């Protein structure tokens, strides 16, 4: 799998550079987490976007094979969302001393998305497999991708009225030099490649399950 090899190469290079090569950032010694946390977050968005695209294709083309692809993409997205929350939480603990800060827009957004897409699985488990379930899952995935920007806007608006922010969360990023940008892009590309490799893997596994079931039924 070339994708997996590319992912490995890019990630090792990118994260290695992040850990050892770039200069330390003033005021935020834990900054290298940025190179892990942000690519993971962006990859999660990409997975949910991919799931929505496959969902749209399913509803458009009425082609049921897209259901598995959409489902696997949501699965990947949720895994990366959990990783985003965990790495974000670790960074928050270091920077602000608490494991959770409601004033971090990205963390709150991911919490909402995590809730939403977890409900996706509940939906799938409580409906009989078939075209009906595929349709409903697809519609739900589309709602998810629309919810993403709407929630982000809501969270931003909420800052003015909810919980006076006890912690000032404007993370003054460092000057983004070309080197920092390069390392970031490499890490991002690696993370996306990793997600793509895992997605392909998982999809193949699920398809194998389906084929084996079919084979078993025809042999018995």
């Amino acid at each position: 799998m070339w994708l997996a090899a590319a992912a490995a190469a890019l990630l090792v290079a990118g994260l290695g550079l992040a850990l050892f090569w770039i200069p330390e950032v003033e005021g935020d010694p834990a900054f290298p987490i940025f190179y892990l946390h942000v690519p993971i977050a962006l990859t999660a968005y990409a997975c949910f976007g991919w799931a929505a695209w496959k969902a749209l294709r399913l509803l458009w083309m009425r082609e049921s094979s897209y259901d598995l692809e959409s489902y696997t993409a949501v699965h990947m997205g949720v895994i990366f969302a959990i990783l985003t929350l965990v790495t974000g939480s670790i960074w928050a603990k270091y920077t602000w001393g608490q494991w959770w800060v409601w004033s971090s827009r990205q963390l709150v957004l991911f919490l909402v998305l995590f809730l939403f897409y977890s409900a996706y699985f509940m939906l799938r488990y409580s409906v009989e497999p078939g075209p009906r379930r595929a349709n409903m899952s697809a519609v739900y995935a589309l709602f998810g991708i629309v919810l993403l920007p709407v929630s982000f806007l809501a969270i931003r608006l909420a800052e003015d009225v909810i919980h006076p922010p006890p912690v000032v969360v404007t993370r003054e990023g460092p000057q983004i030099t070309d080197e920092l940008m390069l390392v970031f892009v490499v890490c991002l590309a690696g993370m996306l490649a990793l997600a793509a490799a895992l997605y392909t893997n998982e999809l193949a596994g699920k398809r194998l399950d389906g084929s084996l079931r079919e084979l078993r039924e025809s042999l018995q």
Partner: protein
Amino acid sequence: MTYFADVATLARKDLLLELRSRDTVPAMVLFVVAALVVFNFSVPADAEERASYGLLWIALVFTALLGLTRAFAAEREQRVLDGLVLAPCDRSAIWLGKGIAVVAFLLLAEAVALPAFHLFFEPVGLELVAGVLLADIGLASVGALLAAMAAASRTRELLLPLLFLPLVIPVVVGGVGASIAEDPGRYLAFLGLYDAVFAILSWATFEYVVTE
């Protein structure tokens, strides 16, 4: 335009059913008032008074959930939904008819809840009422579609809150903001945006939720 005639027929059917059976709206009214009373006992003494606006919105969201859980119950019991889907009307008319009925139920419940809130807790201003009206549209749009999904599932009443709550977080933000912010216009505009976006999406995708 037969589309709107269909919608009107469907909405009238739901409203008439409710008028005769009188089970959903009284339950919603009683629930929201009971919730407000519970809130009195749940807020600490030194809490900011404005916190009660937040509680009002929670109560409204859960009252909507209560009404929505019953939304497709009648159809499911009589297997009427299959018949409706087979009928030669645009499926989205089912959604619109149901949505209108849910808004009506919510308005009735709120006609009691808002004065009660005004009496028990904090003053109810014009912005709050505007927020509630806008929120009703959003809650009903999204709710009618999700209720149809839940009706097709095995777990039904258990599933609807799980699907509903994450999606309506923006409505709560908009509503609370409209109630307490210095500049409620932003929040009302946001509610309008939410309504527009999700109503269109629900209208366009409802067909797929009820068919194979």
